[in-house]
């Protein structure tokens, strides 16, 4: 117990002692997390400026269909209708990123609020919130998303709403579990005994503890959300053709799996890269958000 031995000196004036290096050193992310941050940054950049830099993603030339990767003028080849795959990938970034980020952001805010409220509420408040959320677990998430999207009608905004709804319960579970874990700790007793309002306890004492696991979990959900959105588009409930979107492109290209096997792989790789990048970035953010990360390292 070096920490306790150290305390014997605490009564001595310590002002002369230099601050320990651990406190002032800037926290840093790992190399892989920084690469992931770079990839995410690139994806966001492409989503913003990309569509202005490439040609019309819907312009097709039937005579030049299913060209292989590396063809002059079509670096990623062309699809079944002779449209440039690279242009469509770049153009689709915007919608795919939207479908990945917006539902997760919504779920993060609403799910955390519900989870923390449930965790701090009394027996009945906790039960009513968590049991209501349990209803969502009665259905497979994808089926529920399909049902909601179908009920609302097709379109990108409706599929985003459907995805946001199905992502709320798991986020709320993560937030609730973490909140309950804190509830018995001494500092929560001290916080209650401080006379602070319940809102102040929730936002200033609980939220800093709940945020890191929620952030990490949500970054993992971004990849999932992109894939789900792709699934909805595939079923005709999300983006409708000829709009370029990664998920729709995968389903579109699958029919050429025997004639041009790599065609379906290109948008799939885009989805894979994006979801892995968000996942690794999430791990890096957790380390960055954890004030104790250095003590542990």
């Amino acid at each position, binding site marked *: 117990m070096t920490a306790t031995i150290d305390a014997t000196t605490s009564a001595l004036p310590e*002002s002369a002692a230099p601050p320990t290096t651990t406190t002032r050193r800037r926290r840093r992310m790992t190399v892989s997390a920084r690469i992931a941050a770079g990839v995410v940054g690139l994806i966001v950049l492409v989503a913003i400026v990309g569509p202005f830099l490439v040609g019309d993603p819907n312009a097709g030339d039937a005579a030049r269909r299913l060209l292989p990767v590396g063809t002059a003028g079509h670096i990623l080849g062309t699809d079944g209708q002779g449209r440039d795959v690279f242009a469509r990938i770049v153009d689709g970034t915007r919608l795919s990123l939207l479908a990945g980020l917006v539902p997760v952001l919504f779920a993060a805010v609403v799910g955390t609020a519900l989870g923390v409220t449930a965790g701090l509420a009394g027996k009945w408040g906790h039960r009513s919130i968590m049991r209501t959320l349990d209803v969502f677990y009665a259905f497979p998430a994808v089926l529920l998303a399909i049902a909601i999207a179908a009920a609302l009608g097709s379109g990108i905004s409706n599929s985003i709403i459907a995805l946001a709804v199905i992502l709320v319960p798991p986020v709320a579970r993560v937030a609730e579990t973490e909140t309950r874990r804190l509830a018995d700790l001494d*500092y929560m007793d*001290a916080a209650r005994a*401080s*006379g*602070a309002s319940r809102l102040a306890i929730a936002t200033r004492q609980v939220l*800093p*503890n709940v945020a890191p696991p929620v952030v990490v979990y949500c970054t993992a959900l971004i990849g999932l959300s992109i894939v789900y959105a792709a699934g909805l588009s595939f079923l005709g409930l999300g983006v409708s053709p000829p709009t370029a979107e990664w998920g729709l492109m995968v389903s579109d290209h699958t029919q050429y799996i025997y004639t041009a096997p790599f065609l379906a792989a290109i948008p799939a790789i885009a989805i894979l890269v994006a979801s892995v990048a968000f996942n690794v970035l999430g791990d890096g953010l957790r380390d960055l958000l954890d004030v104790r990360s250095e*003590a542990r390292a």
Partner: protein
Amino acid sequence: MSALLEATGLNKTFGNGVRAVADVSLTVNRGETLGVVGESGCGKSTTGKILLGLLAPDSGDVTFDGESIPAMNRTQLRALRARLQVVPQNPQTSLNPRLTVRSSIEFNLRAHGVARAERGPRVLALLDRVGLTAAQSERFPHELSGGQLQRVAIARALSTSPDLVVCDEAVSALDKSVQAQVLNLLADLQHETGVAFLFISHDLAVVEHISDRVAVMYLGRVVEVASAERLWDAPQHPYTTALLSATPGQGRERIVLHGELPSPADPPSGCGFRTRCPVAEDVCAGEWPALIPVAPAHAAACVHVKTPATTG
């Protein structure tokens, strides 16, 4: 001295059948320190939580400065909390690991409407008073030692100038030398501010050192209450005598208690101590004896205890 906090007939039984607190009555006077000692599981901490208004008693009343705490609504209770504070037991969990020392203390100041501009200087003054530096105010709990953490917890408890601070095993997790420093700090602070302490501990030596009066608890009940000197010199209850004999370095004859502490969920009939008591008799199986005054400000709950009037 006038009573600041008065608890009468507190009872608390948990859902699992454990009768944690049974018919406990305590008084804390203004500016004094009441020590509460007992083995783990005797209901000390539960009593502390009830007195803090964090736990509702099943029956009984707690009045703080004449006002009943269980009868208060949320707003009244929040206002009262500035005057009734806590220093928790475990230094590792008594502070939020994700808040700096400064934020932890500012949280309490903010709860009682201290303006933002005023909070910073107040925090530094409080830290200075408990022997910590301004540089340490930006540290996170994992960067401080156990003794430093309890100093921060004390500074936080004192931030709103309370009348009473409940110290729940506040020094138990610390080294002996650090314990002494923190106890001396508490004594100094009491001298300066006139704050009263309810000092909960399993360590009779620590309690005796800091307390004006001491209450001894066993299986959820108060079995003896006296001034610290009286308790030390003339313990009446056989449990207190046994506890004192286990305190090292004072040449008392060692009384070894046999058997385990009975389960509070299934206490023995009559006096709960009779299963381990060296002087138990048949009569002890009847009823738990009431607290009988044996001298001014000294009472014990044992059939062998006689009031001065009957002993002459």
